């Protein structure tokens, strides 16, 4: 059986007629008891299991997923990875994820196709250029890469941008993060799943967690469709369904769930180099490796668990696209879809112990869950293994909504929700 992926194994399997590949992970029956159970088999849940085994030697772990691996927001996002935030706490968190992404394909022996093609956030006026300079300064002080681009430098990268003198949102320049990029979303979930499985972690799909086992005021496991699974600690990584699970555990969260939609065009020849975001339109886009133009924007402003987008938000995103790239008016859309995102009042994640002892939270990523997968997994694993915060996750504790020490990235970096 071929276990390790490499150019050599691909060559050998080619000669053998591809008959020697092993399944990437097992399909085990759940045991009665684990040291830790992770609820949610998306990127964050699978990464948590992987880092529990790798960083902390805790291998008696199960990931319990109600659907299929990566079938939630991990498979529904626009795959952009960046750390262009304003506050030091945020850059520490998202740049940690970006650094882990930079070595992820090698670490997991799975090509996640991380392509660091850079991201430009365009400024549309002199005043916005001043804010852009402030963001660049903040990012550099916080220790991540950032550069202020003039209009020529933006257009050199994206010559198809709307440079008409009648453009509603003209290009004055922009914030450039060269290490930002895109990755293959399924590969991130599958890569973590395969690497976790190799270290003995049980990945249990098609098994919905219906409640929590509470003994002496402590979370002692989960109740699933397939029976009770006892656990020393439980991690919750269920994104847009966090409030529903929290209600089963008896507490509320500062989260509202919305649909976030995205769409892709038919594939066309290479015409875009980078990821482009217009704060003016709220639309961002890039060209996938297959040639499709991948387009996203802000959330649908109707509380929802529907995992589908409403027409008004789609219309807004697409009208923004045409303002930015008039040449794309001829493109045909191939697919449109939506994920169910967990939005907090300060647009920052919630990481830390929950009000129910023994249950730990990884949620509130809102529209930024995919880019944070390695960090979210690393930090939740730390919380479960040590029972206390990593220094990077501490500012994102649930208690900030009581102390008032919010990490307000909606104001800091102008997140669109």
């Amino acid at each position, binding site marked *: 059986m071929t276990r390790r992926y490499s150019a050599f194994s691909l060559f050998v399997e080619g000669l053998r007629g591809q008959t020697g590949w092993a399944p990437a992970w097992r399909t085990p029956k759940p045991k009665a008891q684990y040291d830790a159970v992770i609820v949610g088999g998306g990127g964050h849940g699978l990464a948590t299991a992987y880092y529990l085994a790798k960083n902390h030697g805790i291998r008696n772990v199960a990931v319990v997923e109600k659907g299929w691996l990566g079938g939630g927001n991990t498979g529904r996002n626009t795959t952009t990875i960046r750390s262009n935030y304003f506050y030091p706490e945020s850059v520490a968190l998202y740049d940690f994820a970006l650094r882990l992404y930079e070595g992820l394909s090698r670490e997991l022996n799975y090509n996640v196709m991380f392509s660091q093609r850079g991201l430009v956030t365009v400024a549309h006026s002199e005043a916005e250029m001043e804010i852009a300079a402030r963001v660049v300064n903040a990012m550099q002080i916080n220790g991540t890469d950032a550069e202020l681009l003039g209009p020529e430098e933006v257009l050199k990268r994206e010559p198809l941008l709307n440079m008409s003198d009648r453009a509603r949102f003209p290009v004055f320049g922009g914030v450039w993060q060269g290490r930002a990029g895109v990755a293959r979303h399924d590969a991130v979930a599958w890569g973590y799943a395969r690497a976790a499985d190799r270290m003995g972690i049980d990945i249990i799909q098609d098994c919905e967690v219906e409640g929590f086992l509470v003994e002496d005021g402590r979370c002692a496991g989960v109740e699933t469709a397939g029976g009770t699974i006892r656990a020393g600690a439980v991690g919750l990584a269920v994104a847009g*369904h966090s*409030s*529903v699970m929290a*209600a089963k555990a008896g507490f*509320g*969260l*500062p*989260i*509202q*769930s919305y649909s976030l939609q995205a769409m892709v065009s038919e594939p066309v020849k290479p015409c875009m180099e980078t990821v482009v975001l217009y704060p003016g339109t709220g639309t961002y886009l890039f060209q996938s490796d297959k040639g499709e133009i991948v387009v996203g924007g802000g959330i649908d*402003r*109707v*509380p*929802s*668990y*529907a995992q589908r987008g*409403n*027409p*008004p938000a789609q219309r807004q995103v697409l009208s923004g696209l045409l303002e930015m790239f008039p040449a794309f008016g001829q493109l045909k859309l191939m697919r449109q879809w939506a994920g169910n995102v967990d939005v907090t*009042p300060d647009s920052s994640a919630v990481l830390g112990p929950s009000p129910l002892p023994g249950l730990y939270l990884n949620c509130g990523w809102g529209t930024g869950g995919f880019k944070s997968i390695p960090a979210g997994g690393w930090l939740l694993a730390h919380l479960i293994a040590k029972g206390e915060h990593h220094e990077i996750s501490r500012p994102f504790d649930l208690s900030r*909504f*009581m*102390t008032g020490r919010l990490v307000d990235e909606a104001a800091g970096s102008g997140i669109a929700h």
Partner: protein
Amino acid sequence: MQLFSCPFCGPRDETEFHFAAEAGKTRPEPAGEVSPEAWSGYLYAKSNPGGPSREIWQHVTCGEFFLMERDTLTHEVAGSKALRGQRP
């Protein structure tokens, strides 16, 4: 395009409406005796149900706030009701 019904103006395009908050929250009083936990819960904790939901919406066009009952899974609207003269 979905139509929401304003109790004052009738059915209108969803883009004319703004989601304000979940219904049924009561501001804890008196302010001097409210614990940080209770105040934080009032400000930030949301029930955020997946399914039937009672919500306060604003019809931005006429400015009126009202109660709307809808389903967050199916987006079906059960009805809307004026808030004037009653507690949600």
